[in-house]
């Protein structure tokens, strides 16, 4: 991995994302104006030196009501990757293409109700910027690989969902522990020669 741009600058830039990136989503192809995601992705990839997107890829990026948050996340990522600071560092268009068509944006979407949270919420904004860097083999300037990975793991929405599942398990565990403690408090302890 190599050092990338400043995370703070990326987050500031994302906070100022033009509203069309998310507001227009779902209207492409209709009468009203809006972001055409395949065109957006195509522009990004070609700007970064890659080839045009294929008809299959266009199909995968075409919107439908159930895919809306997922594709909005891809639109936000397009904005992030259009950052001149990143383009100067020659980010890999191949890695970005693979990432956009992977299950990751969909998994992220399954954890949220509205993709706008990746813009409005500081933690989620940090998460998506770190994720964008991580995918292209970079970590924020001033950090190291270990620190960046662990911080991303802390912010990771998908992991957080898993932790929530674990929390539900923990609640079950809490009941077990409380029951065991009550039962054992009523029983004899293990002998020790001092008291506390």
């Amino acid at each position, binding site marked *: 991995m190599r050092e990338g741009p400043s995370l703070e600058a990326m987050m500031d830039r994302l906070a100022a994302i033009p509203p069309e990136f998310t507001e227009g989503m779902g209207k492409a192809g209709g009468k009203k104006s809006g972001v055409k995601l395949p065109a957006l992705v195509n522009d990004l990839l070609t700007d970064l030196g890659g080839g045009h997107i294929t008809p299959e890829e266009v199909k995968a990026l075409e919107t439908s009501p159930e895919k809306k948050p997922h594709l909005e996340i891809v639109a936000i990522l397009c904005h992030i990757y259009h950052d001149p600071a990143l383009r100067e560092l020659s980010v890999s268009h191949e890695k970005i293409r693979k990432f956009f068509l992977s299950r990751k944006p969909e998994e992220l979407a399954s954890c949220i109700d509205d993709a706008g949270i990746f813009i409005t919420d500081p933690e989620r904004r940090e998460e998506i910027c770190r994720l964008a860097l991580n995918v292209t083999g970079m970590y924020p300037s001033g950090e190291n690989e270990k620190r960046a990975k662990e911080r991303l793991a802390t912010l990771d929405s998908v992991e957080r969902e898993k932790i929530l599942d674990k929390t539900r398990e*923990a609640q079950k565990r809490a009941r077990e522990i409380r029951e065991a403690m009550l039962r054992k408090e009523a029983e004899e302890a293990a002998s020790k020669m001092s008291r506390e």
Partner: protein
Amino acid sequence: MKQPVPREISERIPLMKKEWLPLYNRMGEHSHAPRWNTMCGDRLFKGDLEYVRGFAAGLESERTFTGPEPSESIIEWCESMKNRSHWFESKIAGLDLKREWHLVPLMRRSDMQSSLEYILPYDANLSRLVVNPTSGTTGHPIPAPNHPAAVGCYDPMIQYALRMNGLKSSCVGDKVAAIQVCSQQKTIVYHTVHSYLDGAGFAKINLNENEWRSPESSALYIKDMAPVFLSGDPYSFLDYIRRGIEYRPGAILSTAVTLERALREKISGYFRCPVVDMYSLNETGPVAYSCPDDPSKYHILPHDIYVEAVSETGEPLPEGEVGKIAVSGGRNPYLPLLRYLTGDRGAVSYGKCSCGETSPTLSSFEGRELVLFRSRGGGIVNSIDISGIVRSFPVYSFSFLQRADYSCILKIDAGGEMTASLANRMKDGIEALFGEGVTVEPVREKPAAGGKFRPFICEVE
């Protein structure tokens, strides 16, 4: 044919040997033995005993304390706990522990009450869990889960602290290693033998005369058992002295509350043997023992904990500066500690002591105080008896004040499960300790934050 080990004993002392039975029975059936009210054993199996022996070897050989920073082994242990405890996972993720230890959030007593399920490793098998009662001298009656093997490690630690303070006699084999002396209105009393000490005996007794067959029984029993050392809280030793019990052991081990200088001198003058004050909490196990050369200082006892003095915000303080004591590490598989605030204060310093100890030193220590209350008739009520009653109710923390006019205020912090009728039962129980003419008023109020928390205050002259 020799008698086999009775089942009620082998259930509690799984490694009990037939040859340990004579001592066990002598302790239990002595004509002046107290009225035992429970049975108890070390609950150690073969694997546990091997663990305790391994710990004991490490206690002697791994006393390589580096300096103010946490050791490699503590950091490795924390990293390993990250995969086993939600608490560790959430508190240290993304931190470079070696460089950023000061950023690790502090663990508090209230966390143990409210978030035990997050602290306790999720793969821990609860079948071996034991809960040792606490004397409750901190005002936070935390029922801490423990494991027999971790409790078993108390023995080598106690032996180490006593030996460093000059105890020459062995505590191993066919003899009574210790008697724990209590002076309470009510407590559990039992006799047992410890496998780690190759069947040496141990008894927990209560000096309260109601527990004995005759007024002389306690003195006669202790004399005949001839324990190598006596353990107890300072008040119980004062009661021992007041009763004129003549037996003098090879050492005194004082725990539960801090042994203040005047008390130490009194106890030391009476027993004429090494007097060791051990700083130990139910949640942490033994932390430190008093230095033989300067008993106002304490040396860190186990090699597998990291003790630091921290500021209110968790910043480690420079060597010698007094702050809150935080403990990390340990060996209790049900209670891994990560910068756990003990509620006590002190300064930590490093370097070899004149006594030969190489572990860090706690100085300017402000631990739990011995506070005694008064009944109208001039009798003494031990704060441990008050704690014993409070702890049987769903109370998070409490403080108890006796005013100069003998009336008492019990401030409690509790949840909705603490109903008015339960509060009344608690009040009645405590009033009964004092007898006629002393009222106890329970008040719902969180203990004041900041500074040193004093759970017990007595204003009676």
